[in-house]
């Protein structure tokens, strides 16, 4: 639990920024259209996995509603493009604000009662997804059941002209999300979140304002997912409820985080990479069902062999002493 003056923290920030610069320069320059499109999806999954880990991984409140925040961001951006000539950056901000606002309303209500912790919280976020899908489907301003063609509204704009640009935007969002994840891994804020996961009552008795921390982090996590929805709207070209709010999205995000582990901030990043690459490789099988079975089987194997995910199995360089490897946890 260091603070932002810690050099190690800034080294991690620098490493992330360095990787991002290399990706932004190399992928559009040398990659084919397929590689760039794959890269865009890959980085978007990283944003979703890291932002889910930020709240759910740190606090232990498993949310099944992360796909909703991503979807709200997608629809909010689509609505901006459809109803105005505002530039992309406006759509991006509206996407993040819309997702953050929804999380604020849900968080303020749900976290006010200790009854809605654990499994109940997961069910509430699932219920939230159904409500949002119904509302979006029936509000003409957003969708109204017909879907929205986004491409036709962004033709000629910088962000709409090329997947290369969307890739650069997605990398920028990934850097932002990783920066927040790094900050929570080593600061008082992150320690407070992990204390909530370990023993919320004791955390409160130590002066951790658990309600405030949960609401704030839930909002930040949702806003980051919402931001990722803006380039996604353009990438998809046509936005419709079934695809945007698919239950597969939060389930895959959770799977990525479990695979990668939550003991280190970069665990979800490893998980996202593993799942995205495995899914792509399994496409050659020609059977989506078989791919799903293999993907699910891989998750079961990882959980059985590496209960703390891939990142939890990698020894730490600096001697945090540990006698029993089973006792792990907390992003750092």
């Amino acid at each position, binding site marked *: 639990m260091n603070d932002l003056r810690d050099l190690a923290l800034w080294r991690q920030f620098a490493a992330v920024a360095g990787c991002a610069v290399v990706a932004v320069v190399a992928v559009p320059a040398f990659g084919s259209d397929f590689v760039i499109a794959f890269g865009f999806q890959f980085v978007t999954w990283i944003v979703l996995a890291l932002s889910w880990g930020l709240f759910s991984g740190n606090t232990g409140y498993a949310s099944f509603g992360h796909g909703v925040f991503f979807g709200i961001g997608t629809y909010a951006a689509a609505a901006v493009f459809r109803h105005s000539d505002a530039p992309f950056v406006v759509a991006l901000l509206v996407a993040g604000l819309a997702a953050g606002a929804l999380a604020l309303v849900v968080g303020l209500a749900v976290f006010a009662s200790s009854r809605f912790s654990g499994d109940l919280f997961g069910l509430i976020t699932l219920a939230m997804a159904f409500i949002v899908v119904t509302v979006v489907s029936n509000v003409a301003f957003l969708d109204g059941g017909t879907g929205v063609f986004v491409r036709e509204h962004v033709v000629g704009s910088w962000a709409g002209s090329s997947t290369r640009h969307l890739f650069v935007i997605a990398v920028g969002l990934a850097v932002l999300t990783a920066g927040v994840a790094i900050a929570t891994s080593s600061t008082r804020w992150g*320690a407070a979140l*992990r204390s909530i996961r*370990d*023993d919320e009552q004791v955390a409160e*008795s*130590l002066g951790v*304002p658990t309600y405030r921390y949960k609401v704030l982090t839930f909002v930040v996590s949702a806003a980051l997912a919402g931001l990722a929805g803006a380039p996604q709207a353009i990438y998809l070209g046509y936005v419709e409820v079934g695809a945007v709010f698919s239950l597969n999205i939060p389930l895959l995000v959770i799977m990525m985080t479990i695979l990668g582990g939550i003991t280190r901030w970069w665990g979800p990043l490893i998980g996202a990479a593993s799942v995205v690459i495995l899914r792509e490789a399994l496409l050659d099988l020609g059977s989506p069902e078989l791919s799903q079975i293999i993907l699910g089987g891989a998750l079961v194997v990882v959980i059985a062999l590496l209960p703390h995910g891939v990142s939890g199995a990698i020894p730490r360089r600096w001697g*945090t*002493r540990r006698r029993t490897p089973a*006792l792990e946890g907390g992003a750092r």
Partner: protein
Amino acid sequence: MLEVRDLVVNYGEAAALRGVSLHVAAGTTASLIGSNGAGKSTLVKALLGMQPVASGQILLEGEDITRRSAADRPALGMAIAPEGRRLFKEMTVRDNLRLGLHHPAARRRSDDGIELALDLFPILRKRSRQLCGTMSGGEQQMVALGRALVSRPRLLVLDEPSLGLAPIVVAQVFDVIETIAAQDVTVLLAEQNMHRALGLSEHGYVLADGQIVLEGTGEELLRSDRVRSAYLGEQ
């Protein structure tokens, strides 16, 4: 320092505390003794704002803190080492100690609190990067006491600090409590080990079935036939 007036706590329909009143003078140590299920931990939780109070008052230096949240307690100068230690086992010793200084008021009061705890428990200095879940029960108790002390509390509440520890470790823990008590910290000690608890307390309260049934100085209670027969099993 601490005054409790007619405190009532219920668990649903069941009364856990039925009109408990007690007083702990500043700079003294008071023990709260009683058998399992007497209501000691419930009283401690209520004092720390971790358990809703049905009626009654908790006053700290005259200020009514009954309805203040648990997260406010460190600002008021209260700290607890809870029953069963309840450390953040997946964090290091140092991170556990730092969480004892999470509240800004605690940091203002005690910017060198971590060093204070490490001086009191030198073994923790060597183990500062060790995960608490990998430590022995005695070492964990040291961390729990250290975490409560880093904020230099005015009132330290210790809930069953000897629970589940080997006799030699219990002796060490009580030695440490004695050291703390000698430093003008007000201590409220909820404990089943009555000989040791009453031995270092100026005042003691015997709790049974959610009520204070006996009180007196530590020496008086240790000599009391009623206490000895009821709780120490002596004839």
